[in-house]
């Protein structure tokens, strides 16, 4: 109380808040008791490597190796200029720790899943749950121990299939299934073994009109099951992206048709529709409040999972989510700003920070409606491109921790352009912007347009819209911002009734998904791009199985997209930072391919 009164905050608020809070605290606290491992001793052997332009990061990983854990610290240090020094410290293992069973992981999301049918939505509100209960035929290698992929590697990894082959035509994919995989012990499956027919029917369901992902699996000709443990997919043309689609973290979940039929019209309505082969079983739903999952004792990958339960809490308000993390009620929290991170670290000094050197796989940006004649003048679009200051976004909004993006985002390693080139393509040059605007025949204040933003969705996009508005007005554009609720905004964009919009454009781990937004008739071609060169690149890259050659095509597309300011001025991406409670072990950062850490690998140090 003394400390409280000593603060410089206004007395009035202090009295009010203190009264309320003291009364509440009198009811008793519920904060979970953290277990902090204090006896770690780290022996460091510094080794210095100089690399160019790397972001500042510190990654701390606890790596259990049988009965001992290697504590490894990788630290990169920022240098203000172009070259950044990376210091890698190798650490001698001194901590003996073993994964232990038990514990309840608490996570938070902003809203209930709209449905519990894995093939009826791509909202992460549902995929957060589905990856607990379901599997895919193949998946991406996890960032968590023992797989330890690097962020953005996107290495295919066995899931329900233990191996796979592609024939020489690139159209026939054979998957060899694991034996002994059991469906959840729920009616009518009662824990029976999964077989190739189940996989065939699941893919059939994904491909039907009722599936949200039917378009994603266009090209699937047939699925054969030569035996109980082999599935053969045939597609109508070679597609470099096909395996990505089979491994997709939003679409490719294997449901059981027998169970779907058993539930009938009720399938997807409630949480009890989530019956699969995954590491957790659905247990209880309290809509609007909490969804509970319990350990699947028959999970095919033993000894996982370690946790007894996973609880997904519904907390719509970000402040409330932050408070829940600070009061130790949830185990993960992703602060939006550097100052939020610092504030939480001061309150909880033991908290762990995970961050990526890679970036989000979503392209967001300022999109033009190219159907409007005023945006068909390339000089005007280029003026916009030169007018916007991406460095300011990185500095002011991302606290200096971000990267430039192109039409193919930086997270898609091997397909995106290097940062140096992106900086020159999206350079900030207000004088050039003014000149281009004048060349297009517009004086100061003569070119008016509106930026639509979505409320209740991405705060970054709303903030960036305001920054873009200031940049553009400084060079002579007359810009207004029109914030609309997200549902209304999406509808307006799809119907084409907008001028420009600041919003996410594409998301995915595969360039095909990005390019879908630039091809005439493409499902996400919100900007109404119709450019024969882009269409040709799209076709060329989709049959190119050589990753380097495919990367070259896509890089050429990104260059063209930037030079022409074709449809979108991409936002820079922030480095993702995630806070984890100190006793949570082996929690990998969410990869570009998955929204959440692999819960099956997590254990608590208690």
């Amino acid at each position, binding site marked *: 109380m003394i400390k*409280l009164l000593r603060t410089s905050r206004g007395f*009035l608020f202090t009295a*009010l*808040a203190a009264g*309320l*809070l003291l*009364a*509440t*605290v009198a*009811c*008793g*606290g*519920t*904060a979970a008791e953290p277990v902090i491992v204090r006896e770690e001793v780290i022996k460091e052997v510094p080794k210095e490597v100089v690399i160019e332009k790397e972001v500042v990061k510190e990654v701390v990983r606890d790596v259990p190796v049988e009965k001992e854990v290697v504590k490894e610290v990788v630290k990169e240090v920022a240098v203000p200029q172009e070259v950044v020094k990376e210091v890698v410290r190798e650490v001698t293992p001194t901590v003996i720790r073993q994964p232990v069973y038990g514990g309840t992981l608490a996570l*938070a999301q902003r809203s*209930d899943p*709209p*449905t519990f049918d894995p093939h009826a*939505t*791509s*909202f992460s509100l549902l995929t957060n749950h589905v990856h607990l209960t379901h599997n895919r035929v193949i998946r991406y290698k996890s960032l968590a121990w023992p797989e330890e992929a690097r962020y953005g590697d996107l290495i295919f990894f066995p899931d329900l299939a233990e191996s796979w082959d592609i024939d020489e035509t690139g159209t026939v994919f054979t998957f060899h299934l694991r034996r002994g995989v059991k469906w959840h012990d729920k009616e009518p499956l009662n824990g029976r073994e999964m077989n190739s027919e189940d996989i065939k029917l699941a893919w059939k369901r994904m491909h039907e*009109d*009722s599936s*949200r992902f*039917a*378009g994603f699996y266009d090209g699937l000709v047939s699925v054969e099951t030569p035996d109980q443990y082999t599935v053969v997919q045939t597609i109508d043309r070679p597609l470099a992206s096909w395996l990505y689609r089979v491994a997709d973290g939003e679409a490719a979940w294997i449901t059981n048709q027998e169970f779907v039929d058993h539930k009938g019209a009720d399938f*997807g309505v409630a949480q009890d529709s989530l019956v699969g082969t995954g590491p957790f079983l659905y247990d209880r739903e*309290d*809509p*609007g*409040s*909490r969804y509970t999952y319990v350990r699947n004792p028959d999970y095919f990958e033993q000894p996982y999972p370690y946790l007894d339960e996973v*609880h997904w809490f*519904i907390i*719509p*308000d970000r*402040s*409330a989510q*932050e*408070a829940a993390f*600070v*009061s130790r*009620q949830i185990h993960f929290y992703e602060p939006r700003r550097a100052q939020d991170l610092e*504030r939480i670290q001061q*309150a*909880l000094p033991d908290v762990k920070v995970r961050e990526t050197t890679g970036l989000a796989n*979503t392209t967001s940006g300022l999109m033009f409606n190219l159907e409007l004649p005023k945006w068909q003048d390339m000089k005007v679009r280029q003026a916009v491109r030169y007018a916007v200051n991406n460095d300011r976004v990185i500095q002011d909004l991302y606290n200096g921790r971000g990267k430039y993006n192109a039409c193919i985002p930086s997270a898609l390693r091997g397909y995106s352009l290097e940062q140096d080139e992106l900086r020159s393509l999206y350079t900030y040059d207000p004088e050039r912007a003014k000149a281009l605007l004048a060349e297009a025949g517009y004086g100061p204040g003569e070119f008016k347009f509106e930026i639509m933003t979505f409320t209740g969705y991405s705060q970054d996009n709303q903030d960036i819209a305001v920054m873009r508005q200031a940049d553009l007005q400084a060079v002579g554009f007359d810009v207004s911002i029109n914030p609309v*609720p*997200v*549902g*209304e905004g*999406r*509808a*307006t964009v*799809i119907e084409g009734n907008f001028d420009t919009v600041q919003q996410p454009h*594409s*998301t995915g781990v595969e360039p095909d998904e990005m390019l*879908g937004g630039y091809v005439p008739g493409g*499902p*996400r071609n919100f900007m109404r791009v119709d450019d024969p060169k882009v269409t040709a690149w799209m076709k060329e890259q989709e049959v190119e199985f050589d990753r380097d050659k495919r990367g070259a095509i896509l890089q050429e597309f990104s260059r063209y997209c930037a030079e022409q300011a074709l449809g979108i001025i991409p936002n820079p991406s922030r480095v993702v930072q995630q806070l984890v409670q100190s006793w949570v072990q082996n929690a990998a950062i969410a990869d570009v391919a998955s929204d959440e850490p692999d819960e099956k690998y997590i254990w608590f140090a208690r």
Partner: protein
Amino acid sequence: MTGYIVQRVLLMFPTIFLVVTLTFALMHIVPGDAVLAQIEEGTNLRPEQMELMRERLGLDKPLYVQYAEWLWGLLKFDAGVSLFTGRPVIDQLLRAIPISIELIIFSQILSISIAIPVGVFSAIKQDTWLDYLLRTTSIAMLAAPSFWIATLVIIFGAYWFLWAPPIGYVPFWEDPITNLKQLFLPSAIIGLNGSATKMRMTRSTVLEVLRQDYVRTARAKGLSETMVLVRHVMKNALIPVITIWGASIAGLVNGSIIIENIFGLPGVGRSMITAINNSDMTQLQINVLFYGFGIMVINLIVDISYTWFDPRVRYS
């Protein structure tokens, strides 16, 4: 009296009809529908699939048909299913009602138990420093938006005490202690915010009544000051306060919508915000129906209560 009540109850139906019709019309003025609201930027939906979804949800029919079908369903006690989740909307509403009612009851108990004693005290101590302090405090409570107070209380509560209300709503009958921990702060914030108006109104009406002849007569009869206050002043002074309280119910509903969202309480208010964001017409309509009906019933009770507080009031 009975005739008056019957008349008021009958009047509710056209009022409710107007409210839901207006809501329906307003929701269709804004672009988009429940199908478009379900589409993320990563969608691969084909246009024909979207049409199929609209057909399944009945959104392909003319507006007047959609509305007539909804009304007809309501008359058959079938409010339909959520356009977004597919769950029966009545289930969602019935789950949410106890939470909102509990929040409103707690907040009103707190609000009245603060406002009336403080208002009376302030009137008795008119123009003393205590009166000034209480009036200033009440203005501050009025001026501070409840959502702002709520955010500050949550954040500073977490940072100063490493405490926040328990997450994951628990019904009172399952765990009363946890339930009270979850409801105390939101109720307090709504209650304090609402108590300011009532406190100021109580003060001014008590001051007015204190100057009436019958109060002087009561004192002249030798009644104690407490007896004068309780028996002669309070009963007469409370009528305008009750009117204010009845009128504040609509505002209270607005406040609870925001507070429920901030504190993660799955009440009717939060359900409304979700329904609006998702263009979920059927869920929104049933929630509006509930709120509209609730407000009218409370106003009716308030009107009827006048006859108890002031026997001169008669309805015919």
